[in-house]
């Protein structure tokens, strides 16, 4: 039973992380209908920037973490400005193909700078954060990941529900023409959603780097996991992304623990197919409001 709870808790915090990073993906999709194939590379970028600050510049963990997030945010903004803005008005498939190209470019740049080796961060999470619940030991990194998840969720929940920028972002996702007619700066909203996506991806990248080690191939492969996560949760639902992430995380953890670790990447997709047969919009996909 202890093993069960151990797996459960690891799965939950990992899943939370998937969910948060998928949230970035969903935001880009919601505001501009673009599927971002460079999501995994955004994860990797966050992990490597953090690595650079820790190893090269020897900056303590917390400031390094904050600087990394700021840089990721700025990078997202830049990507939109430089690569995507010229494509506004072009068919969507061009933009989606551009994100594929962006993925290779970023991967190439990371390989050039750091090579394909597996890195690990110097130990920076204090062991005192280990939590012991009825014989189940939760490792500090999972605790941290869980707390980060909750904090980010609260921040974004508040942002989208109450702040003007958040409401503008949702309005663009809802009806772009109407938003334009009211003077919402749609291009800035696109840039903002890329920036936020890069930020949450970078954050997840760091935590995943702590758990699995830092390797560009592995991190970008984890990035691909946003697809089962968001399709499961419904492509256009932010809450769905979180729930989808948690489900995939827990499934993975159980498969790895009870069946065999080599299946852990496959089972989520099998479950995904099963759920989509019953609910084609995903678990929380927005049901079209239709007036009759």
């Amino acid at each position, binding site marked *: 039973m202890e093993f069960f709870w151990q797996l459960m808790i690891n799965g939950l915090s990992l899943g939370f992380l998937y969910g948060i990073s998928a949230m970035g993906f969903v935001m880009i999709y919601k505001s501009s209908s673009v599927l971002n194939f460079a999501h995994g590379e955004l994860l990797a970028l966050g992990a490597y920037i953090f690595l650079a600050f820790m190893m090269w510049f020897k900056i303590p963990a917390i400031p390094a973490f904050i600087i990394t997030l700021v840089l990721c945010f700025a990078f997202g903004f830049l990507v939109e400005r430089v690569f995507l803005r010229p494509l506004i*008005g072009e068919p969507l498939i061009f933009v989606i193909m551009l994100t594929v190209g962006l993925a290779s470019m970023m991967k190439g740049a990371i390989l050039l700078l750091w090579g394909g080796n597996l890195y690990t961060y110097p130990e920076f999470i204090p062991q005192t954060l280990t939590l012991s619940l009825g014989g189940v030991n939760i490792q500090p990194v999972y605790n941290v990941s869980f707390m980060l998840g909750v904090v980010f969720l609260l921040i974004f929940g508040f942002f989208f529900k109450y702040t*003007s920028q958040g409401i503008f972002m*949702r*309005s663009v996702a*809802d009806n772009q023409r109407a938003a334009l*007619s*009211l*003077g919402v*700066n749609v291009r800035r909203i696109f840039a903002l959603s890329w920036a936020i996506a890069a930020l949450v991806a970078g954050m997840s990248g760091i935590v995943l780097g702590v758990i699995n080690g830092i390797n560009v191939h592995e991190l970008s492969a984890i990035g691909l996991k946003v697809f089962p996560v968001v399709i499961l949760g419904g492509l256009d639902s932010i809450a769905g992304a979180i729930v989808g992430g948690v489900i995939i995380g827990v499934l993975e953890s159980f498969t790895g623990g009870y069946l065999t670790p080599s299946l852990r990447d496959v089972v989520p997709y099998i479950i995904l197919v099963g759920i989509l047969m019953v609910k084609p919009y995903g678990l929380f996909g927005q049901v079209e*409001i239709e007036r009759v």
Partner: protein
Amino acid sequence: MLLLINNISVVYSDVIQVLKGVSLSIEEHNIVSLLGSNGAGKTTTLKAVSGLLKPENGKVTDGEIIFQGEKIHNKAPEEITRLGIIQVLEGRQPFKYLTVEENLRVGTATRPGQSFKDDLELVYHYFPALKTRRKMKAGYCSGGELQMLVIGRALMAHPKLLLLDEPSLGLAPLVVREIFQIIKRINEEQKTTIILVEQNANMALQIAHYGYVMENGRIVMEGRANELRENPDIKEFYLGLAPDGEGHSYTDVKAYRRRKRWL
């Protein structure tokens, strides 16, 4: 003169010419009504003013649009809305998944960071029905409420010039009457200049000060609203009133010629 449209031509996708030399002049604090049948170019005229032609690949190729002494044709909608020109799109276009109050808040996009509490109260004062619905998702409101919502949303932006595109579309006659009364009150109390595009010529000419009639991308007639209401051709072709209370026979060549002159 608040807005001057001087002999503009509008072309979509570089080939489809929709407006061929349209000129309008809009006096401050007036309601100006733009009438005409489907495809006459009324909506395109509004979009040329509000800048919304751009995302649809349309362009003003000739002529100029001057708002308060400033040339605004072919500018981006973000800039034009910040000058105080807000278009209420045809077919209502609410943000379906946002609540009524959130919809209204989007109307403050042109003046970020400013307080909007008083404006919310103002909108609820004109449209009390919205207040009871404020926490509801807009997608579940009725057609009349949605029309009120989108007009209210535009009011949140403090418009100097409000462009209303067919506010009566698909609404019950009583609701149309109510909405037109409110439009008139907004014009009188807020001193908002309004361009009103309408199919319902009768209602539009009742609240408008001035009117233009468009056909095939041209202005074919203009005049004070009360004069237009009395014009026999307008009466027959746009208000649906036959002269002497009788209809025409289709064999009546003279009537056909008279109609033809408009097209």
